[in-house]
């Protein structure tokens, strides 16, 4: 008897099977976009040492239970907060701990406001009844204020270091290991930490 060729498998329904699977994955897919404001909590310390900070170096932000905002003893709208915080941080009215003047500040140099970005502290206090949405919008404005100053500084000193036309956020994005940016990432990271030192984020939350 002659050897028979193996019968061909009908592949006509392959498309149907693939479609079925495709539809299943289409339905279950959630393209998750995980974005958020990164913050760092202060570590628990047993020894409560009181550091004396001059009142003029503290920018108090209070949120009450009715979602109202009080900044330095005055009511304020959330939209005005960023500008007020920038003005406070960038004031540069005095010297930092080493006795140096802030030569990159562009503020009014008001002796009654903060001495140096290095010393300026934003103190945020909220009540238990404050809504989370409101808290985040305030938190967003304060982080935004730091970003405004850092971006400005990055555009100022970036060209000297060979990073033209990049603001701070872009620098941070480019310095990540996963980014496809071509350039000296090590040098960029140094610049980023320099800017971070010049405008340190000192945002303290009162419990």
């Amino acid at each position, binding site marked *: 008897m002659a050897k028979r060729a193996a019968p061909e498998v009908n*592949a006509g329904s*392959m*498309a149907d099977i*693939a*479609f079925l*699977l*495709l539809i299943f*994955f*289409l339905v*279950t*897919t*959630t*393209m*998750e*976009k*995980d*974005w*958020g*404001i*990164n*913050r*760092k*909590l*202060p*570590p*628990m310390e047993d020894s409560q040492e009181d550091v004396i900070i001059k009142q003029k170096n503290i920018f108090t932000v209070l*949120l009450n239970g009715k979602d109202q905002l009080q900044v330095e003893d005055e009511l304020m709208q959330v939209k005005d907060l960023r500008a007020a915080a920038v003005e406070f941080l960038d004031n540069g009215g005095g010297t930092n701990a080493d006795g140096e003047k802030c030569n990159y500040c562009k503020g009014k140099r008001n002796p009654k406001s903060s001495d140096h970005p290095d010393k300026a502290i934003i103190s945020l206090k*909220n*009540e*238990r*009844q*404050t*809504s*989370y*949405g409101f*808290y*985040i*919008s305030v*938190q*967003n404005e304060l*982080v*935004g204020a730091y*970003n405004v100053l850092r971006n400005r500084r990055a555009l100022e000193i970036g060209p000297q270091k060979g990073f033209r036309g990049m603001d701070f956020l872009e620098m941070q994005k480019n310095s*990540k290991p*996963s980014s496809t940016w071509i350039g000296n990432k090590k040098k960029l990271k140094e610049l980023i930490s320099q800017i971070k030192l010049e405008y340190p984020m000192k945002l303290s939350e009162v*419990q």
Partner: protein
Amino acid sequence: MSKFKKKQDGGVPAINTASLPDIVFMLLFFFMVATVMRDSTLKIENKLPSASEVEKLEKKNLVMYIYVGKPSKNYKKQYGTEARIQLNDKFAEVTDIAAFIAAERADKREEERPFLITSLKVDKKANMGIVGDIKQELRKVNALKINYASIRNMSN
């Protein structure tokens, strides 16, 4: 007899669908790779606030999620209408957070542990009292890196 036969017009010729499975498979693989199976079903309302100064969470496997919000419809009777914490699939109390963080840490490799981030997915209508309690609890177990999950909104 002509060399070029006139085509017989027997309607439209059938389209060759032999490559259809290939196309479908290509799509299938894309979605298979892109799919992230939600690891916990939400039992609470979770409408995140929006913010503009947000950063992307890079490494998904190094993120611990804490959900906070009002219990959703089916659970209202049982758990009331006050904002509650959800860890993994269950409702939890503030005191359970320490154990949850310890369990998550034990799951990860040792060299990864310092990079763990806690993502707080809190409903925007929840109040700060419960969030403050969570933060205090996180400080106790030294999980200091947190991320307030919010929706990216460049306009404000």
